[in-house]
């Protein structure tokens, strides 16, 4: 299928890529019927979806709270309007009024044109859930986006980026196709860097070490872009004397399955996680800096995994670990090493889904000097998305332009703080903000939070 006229759509994956993920693309003539079959299944299984379909009164509260709408002023990017792309089909097929008087209740048959709109708008939504935060009915519109993306996936429609990344997951257990040899080489390089930067400090990065207590799950993007996040985590884990390791079979804190296929692909990561935890004898899993991946793990692993380990092994985030040590007074920190004026971007999944607003601030206040940290506004649960949430990090021209528009609100927030450093402790946020601060001419450096912890830790012999 070619790109639909005028719609903003990311470059789509080929049938070959879908076949590798076990999906046979559905022919155009059968797409509408197949999609309605899937909707019927979701309707009977997912109550939050039915609630979203049935309860919205179009009060408009979500509109001005959505960075996507604020950036584009496209009515289909109003969360309620975006959900309507499915709602009108839902009404037509699953409500009495819609079956009898479709024209009166805004019900519509599903056609290819609407499916093309799904592809366009469900991949402009970043699943940030700020609309859910302000909805007086508590409708989580991101769930509608997720269902839209899932149905598109089953039809064989999806972005090249998400589909290729899902392929890398099945092959290697991480998004970037990291190999063990590549990991070890990168980590040796980082050990040398730490030794040079911190007066001969020796920090090791164990990989696949049997009989480890802690399995640390880094974001694979840290191996290419976010070196200091990887270093900070290793420095912290070594400082507290953890018997830890990473695994080359699951070197990924993210889970693009959660963003596209919350079944086969998402489960692959969950299964690998539990297999590796068991194989390496780990008693605890500590998660690295990744927002959506941490949500997928914290909220879904216990129910999605059918292995006993998932009910027994505690899973925490590295921010929780650092917070606990800070509160217990067990870290000697030198905040002067992070002296520049800094602000904090609350990644959506931490702040609105995982209750991390406090722990990030406990850490921040411990690792920077008094007065260096300025809040952006709004913040915490009310913060705006970076504009790249749910992995919409597309680089085709039209979609890249869209990413700049979708980050207008973020740029405005950052600029108002006059900060020199923008802390964004999530790999998607980092990947979005590295280019975005340049496009918006913001004079800030983008960093993670654990980066600052590693930099402030005072090691004594």
């Amino acid at each position, binding site marked *: 299928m070619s790109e639909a006229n005028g719609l903003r759509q990311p470059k789509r994956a080929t049938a070959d890529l879908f076949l590798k993920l076990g999906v046979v693309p559905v022919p155009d003539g059968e797409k509408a019927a197949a999609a309605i079959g899937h909707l019927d299944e979701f309707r009977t299984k997912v109550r939050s979806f039915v609630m979203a379909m049935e309860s919205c009164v179009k009060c408009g509260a979500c509109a001005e709270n959505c960075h996507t709408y604020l950036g584009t002023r496209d009515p289909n990017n109003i969360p309620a309007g975006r959900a309507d792309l499915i709602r009108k089909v839902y009404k037509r097929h699953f409500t009495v009024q819609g079956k009898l008087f479709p024209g009166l209740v805004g019900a519509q048959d599903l056609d290819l044109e609407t499916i093309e709109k799904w592809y366009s708008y469900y991949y402009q939504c970043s699943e940030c859930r700020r609309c859910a935060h302000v909805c007086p009915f508590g409708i989580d519109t991101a769930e509608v986006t997720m269902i839209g993306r899932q149905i598109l996936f089953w039809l064989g429609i999806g972005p*090249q980026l998400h589909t*290729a990344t899902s392929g890398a997951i099945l092959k290697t257990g991480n*998004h970037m*196709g990291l190999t063990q040899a590549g990991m070890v080489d990168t980590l040796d*390089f980082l050990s040398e860097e730490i030794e040079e930067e911190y007066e001969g400090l020796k920090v090791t990065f164990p990989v696949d070490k049997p009989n480890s207590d802690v399995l640390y799950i880094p974001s694979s993007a840290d*191996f*290419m*872009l976010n070196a200091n996040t990887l270093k900070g985590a290793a420095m912290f884990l070594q400082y507290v004397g953890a018997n830890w390791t990473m695994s080359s079979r699951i070197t990924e804190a993210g889970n693009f399955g959660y963003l596209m296929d919350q079944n086969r692909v998402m489960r692959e990561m969950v299964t690998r996680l539990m297999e590796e935890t068991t194989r390496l004898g780990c008693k605890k899993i500590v998660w690295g800096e990744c927002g959506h991946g941490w949500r997928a793990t914290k909220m879904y692993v216990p129910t999605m995994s059918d292995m006993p380990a998932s009910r027994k092994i505690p899973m925490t985030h590295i921010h929780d670990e650092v917070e606990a040590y800070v509160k217990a007074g067990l870290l000697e920190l030198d905040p002067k090493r992070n002296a520049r004026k800094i602000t904090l971007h609350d990644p959506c999944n931490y702040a609105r889904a995982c209750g991390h607003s406090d722990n990030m601030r406990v850490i921040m206040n411990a690792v920077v000097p008094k007065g260096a940290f300025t809040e952006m506004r709004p913040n915490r649960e009310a913060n705006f998305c970076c504009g790249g949430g749910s992995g919409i990090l597309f680089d085709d021209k039209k979609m890249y332009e869209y990413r700049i528009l979708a980050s207008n609100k973020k740029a405005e927030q950052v600029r108002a703080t006059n900060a020199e450093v923008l802390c964004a402790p999530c790999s998607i946020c980092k990947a979005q903000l590295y280019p975005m601060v340049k496009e918006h001419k913001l004079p800030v450096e983008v960093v993670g939070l654990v980066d600052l912890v590693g930099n402030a830790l005072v090691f004594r012999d």
Partner: protein
Amino acid sequence: MPFVEVEGKQVEVDEDGFMVDPAAWFPGWAHYVAKSEGIGELTERHWHVIDFLKDYYAKTGIAPMIRKLCKESGIPLKEMYELFPTGPAKGACKCAGLPKPTGCV
């Protein structure tokens, strides 16, 4: 997957025009990408980066961490972006026949 013809050879590429099989790389490929990516004529500095990437990929199966690429090739990040305007992960890797990076990059 689509094919493009470069110097009379059929090269299989992905949707973004990256080579599917890095083993099929030949120098003409780098010239072809340089033209289509707006890099222009390849200088000695470009080749230094391309050769480094190819060697590294052959040894490890991945593209190097950007910081490592800069440090070990001796080419600072700023110059790297001047040489390859779309960046080391995309422009340079494409010239060197490496697959397009996936995930959060």
